[in-house]
């Protein structure tokens, strides 16, 4: 039987505020345990929360960016549960009246079609602290670090509109690009700034009724998310095809062992006893405040992509890739302007540069090759000073800090061989040294000659140490071979 996959996501986005959502304690990552947990975060008696205006503004920015309803009133509620890293005994969150209502995020699928993913709602809440179950203490105990308690989060809940692990990852990357472009989240997934919970179910191909779903929590990389979904889909199909039934449960995924497991041994109906938080009044968002925030919205990835196509004439798929972050598109724009060749700028930025950055695990802003330098390098390809192949060697040298484009070309004598006399000499010697290849070319039918020509070109490039101007060498070679064919001698 064929099965359809149905996926919905819940995403926790840590907001990049300086202080917590309800207290003036710092949110800086990596501080010593409990050095950033103040009386409010520790739920000391008599303390009261005061809402951080920046957290609300960040939520509004997200709401505007995803074309969502932003109600004029939203209300905080208490979600009651007992856990040691939640000192108050409840999480201050939103339920009935969240700050962001229905919205949508369009994604571009692999085949280029656009799919709109509906957002059910998004709400503001506080993060919990961290429990450490192993450490320099008795194994019967847990260590609690409350630095994270009270860090502002937006939880975004999608409708079950995603149909595969690939779509879920495309969506997750789009959301990452969106929140970092808005500047409301630093996007550092390894530090937990963006965490995904995936709800997965399967149903027989073509049917409408949803199957029983499971929720795999706390995935903090795109790779783990994809792996966890594929594993869970496979597990559910196995169960159903063997006549079993999927149990609704919360699961975890271990990215190191590549295994998933149930988090709760038996299904329990959670009763969080939500009620409006009496410590916080309703939050009002006025039309004039909305207007003010709308005016401060930065350029978003989709707008940026459209502009890159319009301003530089590059392809839509390249533009989408370059528009993912502000930093990457700014880099590209500088390369394009310096090189005066936008298509080459896009190719070199997305190809040679990105592959080196990915291999070195460096963000674009820490690129050892500046955008200006890459621009000059491309200019040297376009003005025929060097070939594309030599340019890759030069790029490696710039990357290692061995100099600038022009200095490296000069010092290493990499300038392309364009002199007709010198090229002629090489072409002639290659022809006379490779009679078999030449006769193969002559005897080949015209369609196959192109391939045979390539073999001889390879010899020319080899003999010139890659410095022969490929276009001129190719012209000379063709000319000479046709002279031979026409009996004009060599």
């Amino acid at each position: 039987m064929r099965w359809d996959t149905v996926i919905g996501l819940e995403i926790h986005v840590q907001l990049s505020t300086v202080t917590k959502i309800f207290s003036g304690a710092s949110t800086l990552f990596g501080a010593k345990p409990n050095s950033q947990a103040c009386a409010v975060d520790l739920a000391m008696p008599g303390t009261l929360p005061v809402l951080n205006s920046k957290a609300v503004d960040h939520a509004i920015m997200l709401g505007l960016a995803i074309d969502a309803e932003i109600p004029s009133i939203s209300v905080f509620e208490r979600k009651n549960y007992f856990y040691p890293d939640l000192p108050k005994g409840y999480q201050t969150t939103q339920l009935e009246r969240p700050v962001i209502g229905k919205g949508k995020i369009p994604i571009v699928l692999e085949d280029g079609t656009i799919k709109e993913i509906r957002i059910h709602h998004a709400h503001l809440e506080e993060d919990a602290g961290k429990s450490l179950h192993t450490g320099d203490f008795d194994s019967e105990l847990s260590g609690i670090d409350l630095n994270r308690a009270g860090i502002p989060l937006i939880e975004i809940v999608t409708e079950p509109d995603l149909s595969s692990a690939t779509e879920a990852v495309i969506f997750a990357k789009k959301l990452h690009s969106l929140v970092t472009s808005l500047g409301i989240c630093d996007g550092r997934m390894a530090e937990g700034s963006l965490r995904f919970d995936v709800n997965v179910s399967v149903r027989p191909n073509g049917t409408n009724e949803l199957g029983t779903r499971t929720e795999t929590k706390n995935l903090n990389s795109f790779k783990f998310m994809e792996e966890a979904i594929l594993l869970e889909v496979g597990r559910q199909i196995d169960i159903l095809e063997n006549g079993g039934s999927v149990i609704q449960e919360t699961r975890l995924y271990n990215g190191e062992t590549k295994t998933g497991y149930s988090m709760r041994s038996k299904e329990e109906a959670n009763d969080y006893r939500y009620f409006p938080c009496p410590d916080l009044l309703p939050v009002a968002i006025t039309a004039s405040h909305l207007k003010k925030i709308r005016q401060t919205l930065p350029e978003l990835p989709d707008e940026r992509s459209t502009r890159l196509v319009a301003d530089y004439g590059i392809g839509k798929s390249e533009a989408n890739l370059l528009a993912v972050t502000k930093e990457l598109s700014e880099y590209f724009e500088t390369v394009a302007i310096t090189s005066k060749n936008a298509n080459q700028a896009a190719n070199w930025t997305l190809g040679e540069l990105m592959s080196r950055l990915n291999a070195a695990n460096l963000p674009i802003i820490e690129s050892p090759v500046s955008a200006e330098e890459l621009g000059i390098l491309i200019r040297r390809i376009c003005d025929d000073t060097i070939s594309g192949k030599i340019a890759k060697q030069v790029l490696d040298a710039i990357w290692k800090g061995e100099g600038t484009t022009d200095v490296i070309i000069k010092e290493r004598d990499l300038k392309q061989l364009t002199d007709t006399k010198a090229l002629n000499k090489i072409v002639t010697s290659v022809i006379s040294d490779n009679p078999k290849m030449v006769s193969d070319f002559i005897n080949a039918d015209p369609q196959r000659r192109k391939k045979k020509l390539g073999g001889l070109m390879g010899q020319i490039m080899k003999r010139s140490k890659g410095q022969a101007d490929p276009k001129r060498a190719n012209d000379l070679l063709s000319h000479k071979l046709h002279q031979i064919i026409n009996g004009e001698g060599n």
Partner: protein
Amino acid sequence: MKLKRDDVTQLGILAKLAIDENTINDIKSRLENVLELVNQLQTADTVNIDPMAHPQQGFQALREDQITEENDQKAFQKLSKDVQNGLYLVPKVIE
């Protein structure tokens, strides 16, 4: 609504309160009175009334996103029974 003696005992367990056998009947009748009051409230027609978010009129005051708290960790951790390397230690609870 009538409660059983077992209901009171169960509530005691959930609330982590030790309940003296001799007081169960008294607690039971007082809780029943509370439930009676709730029943009375349930009869009020609220169909066309918006739920009240807060008894006080007015809206939440917001604060600037500026650090106002100093690190008082030492003072707070003096209140804790068990602390190590800055962590509060508690009996292990793994869900």
